[in-house]
């Protein structure tokens, strides 16, 4: 794997400073990170560590104060509004803690919307949308409105929507944050399965330790910088550490 590995995301000396009134908050103080295509990455860290900020940078949702973010070796700071929209539409699938299913649309319409944006015609989009909803286990519920679905089902719709344009990257911001333990596990398993089957890079910002079991790599963020990066084989030790820390 090492020979063929290709960086899908490269973060180079990224800093981000927010101005809250007169106070300067340095959310990121120089982050370097390389993410290999097809991996399942968890970005872990306590709240306020800069985890969400880093996540937004990788997703092209926010621009760094200094440093560069490359997706597929393209510096996203160089992209204009159209190219950025295209990137969000075709290259990246987003999953949010609060699901963010568009309330006025059915499950199917939610899933087909990115395909319509991507230029697919309606019939094809509907066909693919139904397939994707079947894939996440909601084949019989595609005409339901979001309020008729449980949290776990809404998150499944979000997973299907994230896959709509066969993205290279799925960015999941606390995908299990609003779900109970069992439903959370199901969503994690689903993400892992999709990452394997479709060779999608999953990048997930989380502080859910359930994520550790499935991650190929865990990036620990602390005080706006990368604290350590652990690969899968090193992980069992750190889980032990966490156990002793918490206990």
């Amino acid at each position, binding site marked *: 794997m090492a020979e063929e590995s290709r960086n899908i995301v490269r973060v180079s000396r990224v800093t981000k400073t927010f101005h809250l009134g007169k106070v300067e908050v340095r959310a990121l103080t120089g982050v370097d990170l390389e993410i290999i295509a097809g991996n399942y990455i968890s970005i872990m860290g306590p709240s306020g560590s800069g985890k969400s900020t880093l996540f*937004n940078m990788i*997703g092209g*949702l*926010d621009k760094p104060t200094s440093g560069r973010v490359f997706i*597929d070796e*393209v510096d996203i700071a160089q992209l204009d*509004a*159209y*190219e950025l*929209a*295209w*990137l*969000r*539409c*075709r*290259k990246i699938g*987003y999953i*949010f803690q*609060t699901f*963010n*299913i*568009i*309330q*006025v*649309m059915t499950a199917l319409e939610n899933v087909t*919307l*990115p395909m*319509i*944006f*991507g*230029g697919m015609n*309606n019939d094809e989009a509907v066909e693919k949308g139904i397939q994707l909803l079947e894939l996440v286990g909601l084949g019989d519920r595609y005409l339901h409105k979001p309020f008729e679905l449980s949290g776990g089902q809404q998150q499944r719709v979000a997973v299907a*929507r994230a896959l709509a344009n066969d993205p290279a990257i799925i960015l999941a*911001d606390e995908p299990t944050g609003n779900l109970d333990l069992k439903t959370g596990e199901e969503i994690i398993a689903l993400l892992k399965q999709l990452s394997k089957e479709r060779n999608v890079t999953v990048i997930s910002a989380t502080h859910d330790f359930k994520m550790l079991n499935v991650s190929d790599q865990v990036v620990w963020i602390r005080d706006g910088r990368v604290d350590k990066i652990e690969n899968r084989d090193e992980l069992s030790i750190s889980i032990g550490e966490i156990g002793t820390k918490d206990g």
Partner: protein
Amino acid sequence: MGDPQANRLVVLPLRKSIEIALKSIRVRFFRSLITTLSLVLAVSFLSFVNVTTDIANGLLAKEDPDLRRVLVRAGYDIAPEETSVGNSPKLRWIIILSLLVCVVGIVNAQLMAVTERFREIGTMKCLGALDRFILRLFLLEAGIQGLAGAGAGALLGALFSLVNSFIRFGHVALTSLRWTDAGQSVLFAVLVGLILSLVGVMYPAIVAARMQPVEAMRVEQ
């Protein structure tokens, strides 16, 4: 990602935009109704005043001294040599004021609608929507609401004016009315209503369209 520009455009066909706009209105029907209500009232007032003037002009055109006296008694300032009546400056002011209040009401209601829909807008942007998709959706919604509201208001105002005049002047009010004039007044009121609706939504729609996706995500709901 070195492929040509043409392959890298995100699109939202007009038919799909209209579909989404209609759906938004239907789902938030009550809210749309409230937004549109001030427009209905203002436009019906405009239509009422103009159609009533048309009716008075119709009566004057009969050149009947009795009718002229009835009109004067009804409050029209008609000099002996005049053959038509217009709206008094005071009345025009009231119309303009009512339309202004209506626009302010629409801006207020639409700004609230945008705030309510921050998350929806942000999500669409994350899915690849361009600023102008959002702008177009809001304009379409306002256009549909404006057309429906102004249409209803104009017809309501005209109807009220006809009934009112019939009661005051009798059936001669209807027989002497030039219906093309009344039709023009109604159409004019609809047009004004539509324009007001679009003007009112412009600022809120621009606010919505310019929003960064990450800002939309931050909003707690």
